[in-house]
């Protein structure tokens, strides 16, 4: 069994991370009734107290397992909140790195100032977390792109991970800012961070706040819909954190739960059994045809299960159709009208391979795939469903529909950069120069260009490459 370490950086990263650990504990408690430290737990937790075996297992009893995590934030508010909340027993101080004053929404401060100041400490904490692992397979980095710490220090941590642990896969969950974001410098921060992601990450799962808001509203609308038959089964919404350790729900909790569920689903096959396992290194292998094009658009279905058993359960097929629907994507994108380079389907629960194949056959004609990967599907079946659902589907698409997001960022960046607005805040930071900006922009432009190039092949019927001929 392999282990993963979660590194959460910045306010957003830590809040999402906190939700992730809560839901992970809930999931394992659900499956592992005896409370014994088993293989599945070992992928994210380590056993601090080997004597403890708890009967009547509830999440609170799982406090003897310590998460493999490193929490980094340059201001203390969020981490303190975690330490005063129900998860306080779970983390210990060696896993935390905090400072007082924050990064002021400035990528340069996060990346260069704090990055250099705390380099040794960060590497030390990472190494300590890695040493506890028997076989470390993957680092999960959670951060946001728009701010200063998550974006700047987070990407510095990413390049440190590449330096210190080059063999270990780096999967980054990045929360992209919405256009109406209240942080004015978020385009600068995002573009500067994006360059780092393109260079140093193995896979990036972009998530947009606006999509999360839309999904949460959709679910709330459903549950308050008024039709008695359509009440949602308790605990079964993808945004629900009930049954975990967390107390009252805080404002961003619902949205953060979605991202936490995304991480749980990606790792489900590595943790639990199934008839067709999909390991984390297989995700990077199958979904990344060219090194820089590693942005995978996630979508999760179903969003909820209905409570009324008299209503026929949403058919399995509906779940598959929904996964390609633009309302279910975690960034604002329409994959069906862009070009697929590759697609992975991770199914959990009581679904058989024939159901999976039938749905792939059904949906394939409507999805445009690149000419050299017409049947580019990677599938995985895990037998353990998530809490509250009988089955669920995670789709990861390497699709050119990320291009509009990038172009949007580029446009917002250019608007500010042309006027040199706020630039002095960045250039004052030691180590920061104009060239950093221009390299970041170049990187972004060439990335967009690569996607353009692929898009151009979309409508054209590409001829098959001529085969080798054998002299007969």
């Amino acid at each position, binding site marked *: *069994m*392999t282990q993963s370490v979660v590194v959460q950086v910045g306010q957003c990263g830590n809040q999402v991370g906190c939700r992730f650990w809560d839901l992970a504990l809930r999931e394992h408690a659900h499956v592992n009734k005896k409370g014994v430290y088993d293989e599945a737990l070992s992928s994210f937790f380590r056993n601090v107290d080997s004597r403890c075996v708890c009967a009547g297992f509830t999440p609170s009893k799982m406090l003897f397992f310590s998460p493999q995590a490193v929490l980094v934030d340059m201001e203390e508010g969020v981490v303190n909140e975690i330490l005063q909340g129900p998860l306080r027993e779970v983390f210990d101080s060696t896993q935390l790195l905090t400072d007082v004053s924050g990064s002021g929404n400035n990528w340069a401060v996060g990346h260069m100032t704090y990055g250099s100041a705390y380099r040794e400490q960060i590497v030390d904490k990472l190494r300590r977390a890695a040493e506890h692992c*028997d*076989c470390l*397979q993957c680092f999960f980095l959670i951060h946001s792109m728009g701010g200063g710490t998550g974006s700047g220090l987070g990407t510095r941590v990413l390049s440190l991970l590449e330096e210190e642990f080059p063999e270990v896969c780096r999967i980054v969950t990045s929360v992209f800012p919405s256009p109406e974001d209240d942080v004015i410098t978020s385009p600068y921060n995002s573009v500067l961070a994006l360059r780092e992601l393109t260079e140093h990450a193995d896979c990036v799962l972009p998530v947009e706040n606006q999509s999360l808001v839309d999904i949460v509203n959709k679910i709330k609308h459903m549950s308050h819909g008024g039709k008695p038959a359509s009440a949602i089964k308790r605990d079964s919404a993808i945004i629900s954190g009930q049954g975990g350790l967390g107390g009252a729900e805080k404002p961003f909790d619902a949205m953060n739960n979605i991202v936490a569920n995304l991480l749980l689903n990606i790792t489900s096959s590595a943790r639990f*059994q199934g*008839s*067709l*396992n999909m*390991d984390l*290194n*297989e995700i*990077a*292998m*199958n*979904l*990344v*045809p*060219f*090194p820089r094009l590693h942005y995978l658009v996630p979508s999760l279905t179903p969003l909820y299960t209905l409570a009324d058993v008299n209503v026929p359960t949403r058919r399995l097929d509906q779940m598959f159709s929904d996964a390609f629907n633009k309302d279910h994507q975690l960034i604002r994108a329409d994959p069906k009208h862009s070009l697929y380079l*590759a697609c992975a389907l991770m199914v959990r629960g009581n679904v*058989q*391979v*024939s*159901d999976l*194949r039938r749905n*792939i*056959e059904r949906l*394939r004609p409507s999805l445009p795939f690149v*000419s*050299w*990967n*017409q*049947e*580019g*599907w*990677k*599938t995985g*079946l895990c037998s353990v469903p998530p809490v509250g659902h009988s089955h669920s589907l995670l789709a990861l698409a390497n699709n050119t529909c990320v291009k509009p997001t990038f172009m949007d960022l580029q446009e917002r960046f250019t608007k500010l950069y042309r006027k040199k607005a706020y630039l002095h805040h960045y250039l004052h930071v030691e180590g920061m120069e104009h060239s950093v900006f221009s390299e970041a922009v170049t990187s972004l432009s060439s990335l967009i260009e690569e996607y353009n190039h692929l898009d151009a092949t979309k409508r054209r019927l590409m001829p*098959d*490459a001529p*085969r*080798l*001929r*054998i002299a*007969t």
Partner: protein
Amino acid sequence: MSIVTVQLGQCGNQVGQELFDIICNDAQEGQRKAYRESSTERFFRETTHGDLVARAVLVDMEPKVINSSMAKAAKCGRWQYGDRSHFSQKQGSGNNWANGFCVHGPRHTEVLEDLVRREAEHCDRLAGIMPVMSVAGGTGSGVGTYVTQRLRDIYPNSFILNHLTWPYGTGEVIVQNYNSVLTLAHLYQLSDAILVHENDVVQRICSQLLNIKHASFGDVNRVIGHQLGSVLQPALTGDCHGVYSRNPLGELVSGLVCHPEYKLLSVCTVPQMASTSIAYSTFSWPGPLKHLRQMLISNTKLEEGIDWQVRPSVRPGGTERTRSRTGPGFNTSLANLLILRGKDVYSAETGGFGDPALYTSWLSPEQGFNLWKCPVPFNKYEKSATLVSNSQALLEPLDNMVAKAWNMFASRAYIHQYTKFGISEEDFLDSFTSLEQVISSYKQLC
């Protein structure tokens, strides 16, 4: 004589477990003593307590599947895997052939060779080695190819029969075509014969013949186990004079693979029906055999939707034959092995399979057609017939696989994932060239 099975990767281990289960049940089912003894000798060894231990080595780069296969075997109570006959690591091969072949294989080569040697030493006489694997993933394909290479060096005089499971055409793994091409090209030089099952075909057998609406991988693996078992269980071959053959793999290989360019074997079994229907069916030989012959000629892989329009054309006289004489869709065979199991095998009429029109012109049907019989019914079917054929049946799937891989290679997609483990573009080109040669050879059979 005994066969040592090497189960590699998730598919290999899952299929292998179903195979041993079916063989054990079949042999133990109050059958004739000679059959049971021969089958048990071939696939199992007995411990001091009288328990049956499979002659198998389980290999995977991550532990979950091996654990569940061993647990399933132990649970059934009739047989089990050897306690120390397995090898696993913590982290898989990531669907990367190069990772399996260049990294995992060499890294663990001593342990793996040791495991096989121990199992082989338990055999009084080694009939041969059968690696069971899939071609789509990383471990089965990559490590499997490496292990076959090592076994070929260590046991130069033993027969090596590779059993391969080909993935669904519409993709289980995106780089499956690369992995398949690399595997097949290498195995072609190492293996004595390559026996293939295609997931697509087996899936159709499950849904159309066995009436399983939502076929799971377990169902698919059971069908593969049934078909493979019907090939490998004891039978009376031409050479054996009333005793079950002591050299099944050797006779299979020498009967079917007469030329090193033609090593791909496909399997068909009739009848196949839902287990609940077996009790209500009557079995006779003429019907199924006629179907089986037409299935061979028209290249239909299951006993459904057989195209009766395809027939060998009538030769006006003389022994020359050109391609235009055989109709479209006609499947020319190089060699066939028909295995009949059940009651009244001696009365079965198999002359149709010896018809020269079925075979390529440069082999006589006496050399091309082999017949084995066994009076003991197999796996609850009162009468069943299995056809192992070396024909153009696998030409189309192979051609498709190479075409898709070539298309992907033309845009160099995913190549960086392979080159970082030590496979170069040259190696890819070599593999493509070998397989184009194989395709060309099969295409020209007439």
